[in-house]
Each structure stands twice: as structure tokens, then as C-alpha cells.
């Protein structure tokens, strides 16, 4: 009798493994604290994807488990990722807003047999840290390089670069310098300002004194951006004819209502504008806007998360729900699809996303709101930052 029960239990357990599994995906991001808005966007992108494509792949149910790392904190990020893998048994790790958080997790992947889909963290080197990393967002190099060409085409030859003094800021400075000097321009001065700068007037004075015709700026999206853009206008630089170039982090859609008039006419290059005109994007914006509650809070991390989910769904299809990280990653190498942001593909070599980068200008819509208007497309841009690493 005892043996029969044991056999029955064993049979049940085995049959359970064979079909109708629940596949868990662990998502790490900032869901509380000063960056909660970006975490909210992760969730909106994921919810939108599951609303449009169902919460099942084949016979397997998909379950998302969220873990909160409010600020860049590699140790906590690693601990939470370990917990997700060991205790929750997730088959996929995803999310990660900050580079250090993603970097801290890469050494775990091979042993855990888990792929990592980076939905935001934008430093080029992350994909080189483990062959199991795939990225569906962008890199600062990728979005900052095309603006150098835009600046040159606008007839500007002398530019001063002004960036926040931290990893992505330095990346942006290097990317712009490389691109602009290759195009024949000159970066007359490179200023790195502290992250905790409230008053940008002295920086504006520096820009004025440098005699540059244009300024390239990079700051993390949020409160400092507002101060910078306003100072640029109020100190008479905008009216003085100095041109403003930046990657799109500076004019992310959720900051635009606050930036308002001061941002009008600023040109940025980025991989995604909420206003992008395509049927895929319309469906996405509607679903994600519903998921986030207030559509005005929608911003770029949502599309990184949406495409990240697409990649994970394809991985699950390819492996039939079995846990096989190497096979899953191989299956999406070279995968191409039409994202809300436009045509994209996973580069087989770097596992980073190849995508269009758009030149946008902040414009005022008929209803008085501000938006990023796409005016030029740089097609199929890879990540120039990886070449710079070598």
C-alpha cells in the first residue's frame, strides 16, 4: 500500500513536470523611492505585453515576480536575484534600471542556468560580462552618437560638452566626442558637473565664456534636468543662439509637462518617443497607458520592458518551457520583430538590440501639451560603445 502511494505521488510529480507548468520571471527594478516612476514604467510595459499577447506561452502559465531595489545598490540587487533563483525558482531574470545592479547579477547566471534580459541599464559593457545577457533597451553610446552628426549638419563646429559626473554621463561625453570629431567638429571644453547640482547658472556662465556655438548635455532624467533646461533659457543662452543637443533622456515624456515652454525646440536623439507613429505603437500606448493609470507618466523604460517580454516569450517558445539558458539565448540571437519603437533586432554577436535612433524636437501639440516630434531617422544603429571598449 505504502509503495503504491509513493508510486502515485511520484507519477503525479512527474506528470506535473511534463505539462502545464508555471514559468516564473523575476523582475528587479526601482518600484519605490526616487526612481519609482521608472519601475512603474517597467511594470506598465510588462502588463501591456501580457494584456496584448496573453499570459500563457503554449500550455505554460507565466508568472511575474517583482523585487524592489529603490536606488543603485549592487549588493541588494545580487541578493534579491539569488533569492529569486533559489527560493522562487525563476527561470528568467529581467528588469534592471541601473548598470551596477545588472553588473552585480551577471556572475550568477551561468551557475543558475538563467538568462538575464536587461530592460534598461544602458552601459555598453554589461552584455560582455556574461553570454547569457540580452538587452532590449539602448546604450548611452547608441543614443548619443547620432546627435553628433546632427550637430555637424546644423553647421555647428565648436561644441562644449556638459555632463553629470557619473558613469552614463562620462559615456555620453565620450560618445559625443568620438562622433563629433569623426564628423570634423571640435569639442572645445568638456565639463563634468556634480550629480547634486541645484543651481546651473555658473555652468551657463562657463558655456557662455567658452565661445562654443552649441552645447551637448547629458543629465539623468528627473529634477536636475528641469533646472538645467530652465537655466539654459533664463540665462539668455537660448536667445543668444547657442544650440542645444542631447540624448533623449533629457526630454523624457513624463518630464515634459514640467519642462514646458523652456524645452520647446530642443533637439534630442533617442530610440523611442511615445508619439511614434505606427499601429504597433498605438496599441502599445493604449495598453501601457491603461496599465500605468496616468498615460502622462509613460516613458522610455516601458518600451524596453515590453520588448524584453517579447524576447522572453520567444525564449520560452524555443525551449518548450524547459530551463535551458544557453538554448534560450541562442534562440533569440538574430531575432527581429516590429517593436512599438520601430523595426528592431537582437544582434547575434553582442546580444544587444539593433534599432532605429530618431532625431526629435520638442513641439507643442494642438491641445497645449508638449511632445517629442520625430523628424529624422537613423536606421539600424548598433552599439558603437562596444567597439570603443576594445
Amino acid at each position, binding site marked *: 500500500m505504502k509503495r503504491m502511494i509513493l508510486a502515485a505521488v511520484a507519477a503525479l510529480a512527474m506528470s506535473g513536470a511534463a505539462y502545464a507548468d508555471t514559468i516564473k520571471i523575476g523582475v528587479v527594478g526601482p518600484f519605490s*523611492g526616487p526612481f*519609482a516612476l521608472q519601475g512603474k514604467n517597467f511594470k506598465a510595459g510588462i502588463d501591456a505585453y501580457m494584456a496584448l499577447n496573453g499570459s500563457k506561452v503554449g500550455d505554460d502559465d507565466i508568472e511575474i515576480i517583482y523585487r524592489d531595489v529603490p536606488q543603485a545598490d549592487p549588493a541588494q540587487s545580487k541578493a534579491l536575484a539569488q533569492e529569486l533563483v533559489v527560493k522562487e525558482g525563476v527561470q528568467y531574470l529581467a528588469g534592471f534600471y541601473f548598470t551596477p545592479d545588472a553588473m552585480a547579477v551577471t556572475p550568477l547566471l551561468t551557475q543558475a542556468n538563467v538568462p538575464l534580459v536587461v530592460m534598461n541599464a544602458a552601459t555598453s559593457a554589461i552584455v560582455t560580462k556574461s553570454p547569457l545577457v540580452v538587452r532590449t533597451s539602448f546604450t548611452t553610446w547608441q543614443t548619443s552618437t547620432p546627435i553628433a552628426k546632427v550637430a555637424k549638419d546644423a553647421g555647428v563646429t565648436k561644441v562644449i560638452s556638459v555632463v553629470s559626473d557619473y558613469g552614463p554621463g562620462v559615456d555620453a561625453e565620450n560618445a559625443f566626442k568620438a562622433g563629433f570629431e569623426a564628423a570634423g567638429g571640435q569639442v572645445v571644453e568638456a565639463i563634468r*558637473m556634480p550629480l547634486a*547640482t541645484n*543651481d546651473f547658472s555658473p555652468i551657463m556662465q562657463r558655456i557662455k565664456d567658452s565661445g562654443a556655438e552649441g552645447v551637448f548635455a547629458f543629465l539623468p532624467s528627473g529634477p536636475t534636468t528641469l533646472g538645467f533646461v*530652465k537655466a539654459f533659457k533664463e*540665462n539668455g543662452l537660448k536667445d543668444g543662439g547657442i544650440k542645444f543637443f542631447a540624448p533623449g533622456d533629457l526630454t523624457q515624456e513624463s*518630464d515634459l509637462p514640467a519642462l514646458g515652454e523652456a524645452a520647446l525646440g530642443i533637439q534630442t536623439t533617442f530610440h523611442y518617443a511615445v508619439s511614434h507613429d505606427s499601429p504597433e505603437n498605438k496599441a502599445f500606448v493604449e495598453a501601457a497607458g491603461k496599465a500605468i493609470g496616468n498615460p502622462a507618466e509613460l516613458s522610455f523604460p516601458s518600451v524596453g520592458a515590453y520588448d524584453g517580454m517579447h524576447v522572453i516569450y520567444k525564449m520560452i517558445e524555443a525551449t518548450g518551457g524547459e530551463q535551458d539558458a544557453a538554448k534560450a539565448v541562442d534562440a533569440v540571437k538574430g531575432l527581429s520583430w516590429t517593436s512599438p519603437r520601430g523595426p528592431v533586432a537582437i544582434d547575434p554577436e553582442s546580444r544587444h538590440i539593433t534599432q532605429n535612433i530618431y532625431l526629435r524636437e520638442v513641439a507643442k501639440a494642438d491641445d497645449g501639451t508638449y511632445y517629442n516630434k520625430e523628424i529624422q531617422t537613423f536606421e539600424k544603429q548598433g552599439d558603437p560603445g562596444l567597439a570603443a571598449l576594445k
Partner: protein
Amino acid sequence: MQTVLSIAIDALAYGMVLFVISIGLSVTMGLMRVVNLAHGAFAMIGGYIASYAARDLGLAYGFAILLAIFGTIAIAVPIERLLYRRIYGAPELTQVLMTIGITFCIIGIANYVFGPTLKTVPLPSELQGSVDLGFRAIATHRIFAILCGLAVAAGLWYAIEKTAFGVKLRASVDNAAMAAALGVRTEIVYAVSFAVAVGLAAFGGVVGAELLPVEPYYALRYMVTFLVVVSVGGAGSIPGALIACLLLGAIDTTGRYLMPEFGEFFFYLAVIAIICIYPRGLAGRAKG
């Protein structure tokens, strides 16, 4: 020369904005002896109310400021009666723990009610744009902030040094039991000073909103700067706070112009030097 003048003006404007926001904290810390870490949170509430009144209800700027000040006081007075009253005279650690707790609650509520995005207070057309000073342009609202700072400094100095209420306040602070014995209603004096301090925080939050934009983490993000101003100036001293703001504004602005890569190095170096020489701040009084 032109650059020097230009930096001097930037320093003055930044210093005055700091002053308007920090002076309320100087009053609570110096006169009421409460380490009020929720000061930034009250400034933020003021900013939110003004933003809501001016942007969503379309009220005039001046009216939005008044609404912000009195709205914030209306929120703060019950908090004073329920919570702050218990910690007057309590050890500093108790005060810090309770006020930081209040701050976290307010951050959470602000995040829930207004969302995590940036909020601005739209300026009236008279304060928009910039004024040409001949050698450079300066934003009109900065001049407005400078004037507000001067008005607040003068008004407070007069109220504390020259009026009957000021006498009662100073008496209650120095020896509450003796003041009460002489017929001063100390709890009313405390409640009124607390309301004034909170009103000033809200006023500063609105006037400084162009420089320090309102978002839920405002309450903590700038708190260190406010505390530094108070400790350098000497808690409770209005001229001290004014000098501290102008000095720190000048050092910060010049440092950022000359060597931005050094970050806040010069700012904190100056703070350390001043505190070493004047442990109670530039115009601090010895504890009686």
C-alpha cells in the same frame, strides 16, 4: 570683471533662495529647540498646494502662494498638537526619529496622491522671462526671490527683536517654566512660532520651486543643504542664517564655475572650516 559680477549675482540669487527655505528651520531649531527633519516635507507640501492651485485650478500666483502658506499651516497645526508637542524638550534622538518618520509618511502620501512626476508652479507673466542687467540676463523670478528673502529677513528680525510676541517667545525658549509662571501662555507661543516656521517653509518651497522642483523626494533631497545652512549660520539667528546663505551660495557658485569636477568639495570644505572655528555657527548663542 564682467564674469566676477555675473557670478556674484548668481551667488546672491542662489543664497537668497536657500535663505527663504532654510530660515523656518532655523526658527524651529534655534528658538524652539526641535530638530525638525520634516521641514523639507512642509516646504514640499507648500509647493504641491501652490502647483495644484495655480496649474489645475488656474488661480493667480499671489493667491496660490497665500493658499500654499495657509494650507500648509492648516495641515501642520494638527500635527503639532498631536505629535510635536510631545517632543518639545525631548532628547535630540527622539526628535530626529519622530520627524524623519513624519517625513517618510509625507513622502509616501505625496507619491500616492500626486504621483512621482515633477510639478512646477506656473509663474505669472510679470515673473517670466529675464531682465537685462546690461552685462548679462537674469531671470525675473530670481530677482523676486532675492526681494522675498530680504523681506522675510527684515520681517522676522523685527518680529523677534522688537515686538511683544518676540519677547514672549525668547522668554519661553530660555526658561519655559519661569515664563509660564509670569503669565506667558507658552503652548500658544510655541504653536504660533511653529505655524510661522511652517508657513515660511511653504513660502520657500513655492518661491524656490524654479530652482528646486517639487517631487515626492524633495522632502529628503535638499534636507542636508537646509541643515548645513542652519548649523553654519547658528540656529535661531536671522542675521547668522543670512550671512551663511550668502557665504555658502558664493562658495558653491564660484566652485561650480571654476572647477565643477570637484563637485561639492569646496562647499563642504567651507562648512567644515566654519564649524571648526565657530562650533555654534557664525552667530550662534551659547546654550543658556
